[in-house]
C-alpha cells in the first residue's frame, strides 16, 4: 500500500512542484513581504510599517469604502436580477430556451477590454447611446465619468451586466434540480405559484444562492478591470478606486510591494470574514 501511495505521489510531483512554486510560495512570500519596508533598499523587517500605514491611510479607507459600497449594493441587486432571469429561463412558456441561455451567459466570455471599451462608448457624455436614450425621454444627460455617484453606478451596472447571466445559469441549474412533483404536490395543495416560489423554490435554492453570493463577494473584493478600464484608474479623483486598484497602484506603479501585500491580505481577510458571516447566517438548522 505504501508503495502504491509513493507511485501516486511521484505522478503528482510535477503538479505539486508548480503549485508550490507559483501558488504556495507567493502566498507565503507576500505575507512575509507585508512585514517589510520595501521602499528602501535593501528591504528591512519592519512589522508596523505597512500594517500601521494601512490603519491611517485615507486612500486605503477610500478604496475600502468604495469596494464595500459596490459589494453591498451590486451583489444583492445582481443576484436578485439573476434570480428573475433564472425564473424566466425556467418557464415552460419560453421558446428558444437555449438561445436565451447562451445570450445571458455570453457577457462572461466577452473580452474584458472589449466590453470596457463598449461601455465607455455607450455611456459617453455626448455621443453615448445611454445619454441619447435619457434625452429622448426628456431626462438630462448624465456625465458618467466626471461625477463620483454616476461613475460608481456605472461600475455597478457594468459588473452586473457581465455577471448576472452567469449567476442566472447557476441558479437555473439549481432550480432544475428541484423535482417537478414537489411543485405538483404544492399545486394540489392549492398553493399559488408566487407562494411556491417563496416557500419552496427560494428555501431549496438557498445553498445555490449562498454559493453565488460567496463567488460574487470574492469577485467584488478583487474588483479591478471595470474601475481600471471604464472609469480610467478609479476616476474621477479616486472616486471609484477599489482595493484591487489600490493594490495595483501601490505594487506595480509605486513598486511598494510591502504595502501592496498588506492590502492584498486585508482583501483576502475581508472576503473570508464576510463569507464566514454569510455562511453562519444562512446555515441549515439542525
Amino acid at each position, binding site marked *: 500500500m505504501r508503495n502504491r501511495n509513493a507511485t501516486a505521489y511521484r505522478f503528482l510531483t510535477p503538479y505539486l512542484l508548480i503549485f508550490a512554486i507559483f501558488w504556495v510560495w507567493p502566498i507565503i512570500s507576500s505575507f512575509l513581504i507585508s512585514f517589510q519596508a520595501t521602499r528602501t533598499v535593501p528591504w528591512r523587517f519592519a512589522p508596523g510599517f505597512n500594517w500601521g500605514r494601512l490603519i491611517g491611510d485615507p486612500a486605503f479607507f477610500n478604496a475600502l469604502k468604495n469596494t464595500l459600497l459596490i459589494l453591498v449594493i451590486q451583489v444583492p441587486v445582481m443576484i436578485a436580477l439573476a434570480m428573475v432571469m433564472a425564473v424566466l429561463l425556467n418557464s415552460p412558456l419560453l421558446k428558444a430556451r437555449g438561445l436565451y441561455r447562451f445570450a445571458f451567459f455570453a457577457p462572461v466570455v466577452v473580452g474584458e477590454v472589449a466590453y470596457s471599451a463598449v461601455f465607455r462608448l455607450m455611456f459617453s457624455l455626448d455621443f453615448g447611446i445611454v445619454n441619447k436614450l435619457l434625452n429622448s425621454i426628456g431626462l438630462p444627460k448624465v456625465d458618467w465619468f466626471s461625477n463620483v455617484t454616476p461613475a460608481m453606478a456605472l461600475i455597478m451596472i457594468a459588473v452586473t451586466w457581465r455577471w448576472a447571466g452567469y449567476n442566472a445559469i447557476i441558479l437555473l441549474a439549481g432550480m432544475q434540480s428541484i423535482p417537478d*412533483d414537489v411543485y405538483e*404536490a404544492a399545486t*394540489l395543495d*392549492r*398553493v399559488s405559484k408566487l407562494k411556491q416560489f417563496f416557500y419552496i423554490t427560494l428555501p431549496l435554492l438557498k445553498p445555490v444562492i449562498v454559493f453565488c453570493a460567496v463567488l460574487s463577494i470574492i469577485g467584488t473584493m478583487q474588483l479591478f478591470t471595470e474601475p481600471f478600464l471604464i472609469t480610467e484608474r478609479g476616476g474621477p479623483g479616486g472616486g471609484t478606486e477599489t482595493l484591487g486598484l489600490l493594490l495595483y497602484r501601490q505594487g506595480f506603479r509605486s513598486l511598494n510591494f510591502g504595502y501592496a501585500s498588506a492590502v492584498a491580505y486585508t482583501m483576502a481577510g475581508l472576503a473570508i470574514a464576510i463569507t464566514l458571516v454569510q455562511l453562519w447566517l444562512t446555515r441549515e438548522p439542525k
Partner: protein
Amino acid sequence: MATVTLTNVAKRFGAFEVVHGANIDIADGEFVVFVGPSGCGKSTLLRMIAGLEDISGGEIAIGGKVVNDVEPADRGIAMVFQSYALYPHMSVEQNLSFGLRMTGNPKADTERRVNRAAEILRISELMERRPKKLSGGQRQRVAIGRAIVREPQVFLFDEPLSNLDAELRVQMRVEISRLHKELGATMVYVTHDQTEAMTLADRIVVLRAGHIEQIGRPLELYDNPDNIFVAGFVGSPKMNFIKAHIVGRDAKGVVVELAGEEKARVVQPLTGVAPEPGSKVIVGVRPEHFGVAGEGDADLTVAIDVVEHLGGTSFLYARTAHGDDVVIQRDAAKVPETSNVTVSIRKSYLFDEKGMRLR
C-alpha cells in the same frame, strides 16, 4: 366521498396517442388499481384524473361533476407520489400542514387535521423531523398523511410503494388496505406490480399500450382472463402458454392437440364459434393447474431445467418436447428426482392466434 367516471378519455402528445378512449366507472368508496407494464398509460390516466395532465379527449367526472376544466386543487382529490414529493426543507408537521397554512385554513382546524392524520399513520413522534431523517416507510406515511389532511373525496396513489424494499412493501400494503377500510374513501392506485394489485384492489383495470385490456375483481381476472395479456400479467409465476392446434370437436367441446405431443389433447368447452380444425391456438395453463400424470385431460412429458424450492411449494422450470418453456408448481414433498417428468393438465384456457380468449 365520490364516484369517478372516465368516459372515452384520451391523451395525445402531439400526434402520438398514449391513452385511447378509456372508459372506467369507479364507485363511491371503491379501491381501484390501474395495473400494467411501464409505458401502458396508467400514470398518465391517474395524472389526468388529478388534473396534472390535460385531457386530449373525453370526459372525467368526480362526484358526478365534470372536472375537465377544473383546477387540480378544486377537484377534491389528493395524490401520493412515487417519489413521496415531500418538501425537504420542512419538518413532518410543516409538510402535513403546508397546504392548509398557505390557503389560510383556521389554525385550530389545521392542527386537528394534522393530529388526526398523524394518529392514523402513527407518525406523531416524528413531527419535528425533516424528511431526510426518516426511513423510506416513514416518508411514505408522511406523504399519505399529507393526502389525508386535505380530507379529499378521492385518494390517488402513483406507484407509492415502488421505492421501498420488499419487506416494507408488504407492510405498507397492509397499512394502505387498513387505511382504506378506516377512511372508506374512494381510492385509485397505480402500480406495475400485479401482486399489489391483486392484494389491494376491489377492482383491477389492466392496461396495455394505452388500451384497457380488462376490468374486474382480482379473482375474476385470475380465473377468467379475456386475453393472453391479462392471463399472463395476472398471477405469479405467470401462466404458461403452450402452442397447439384444433383437432376437432366432441360432445364436451373443442379438442386441442398440444404441439409436438400427439397424445396430449385437451378438451375445452366452447360456447362460441369454434375455429376450424387445424387452426393454430394457444393453451394457457397456470403453474398450479399441472397435476401428476393421469390426473387431468392430457399428459405431457417435460424436461426439467431448474427446481426452485420455496419451502412449502416448489417451482419446476421445464421445457416441453416442442420447446415451450413451462413453470410447474408442486408441493415440496412431491418434487420428482428425475430430469424428465410427466405432468397432466387439470385446467386450461384457450386463446386464438391473436391472443383473444376462446370461450
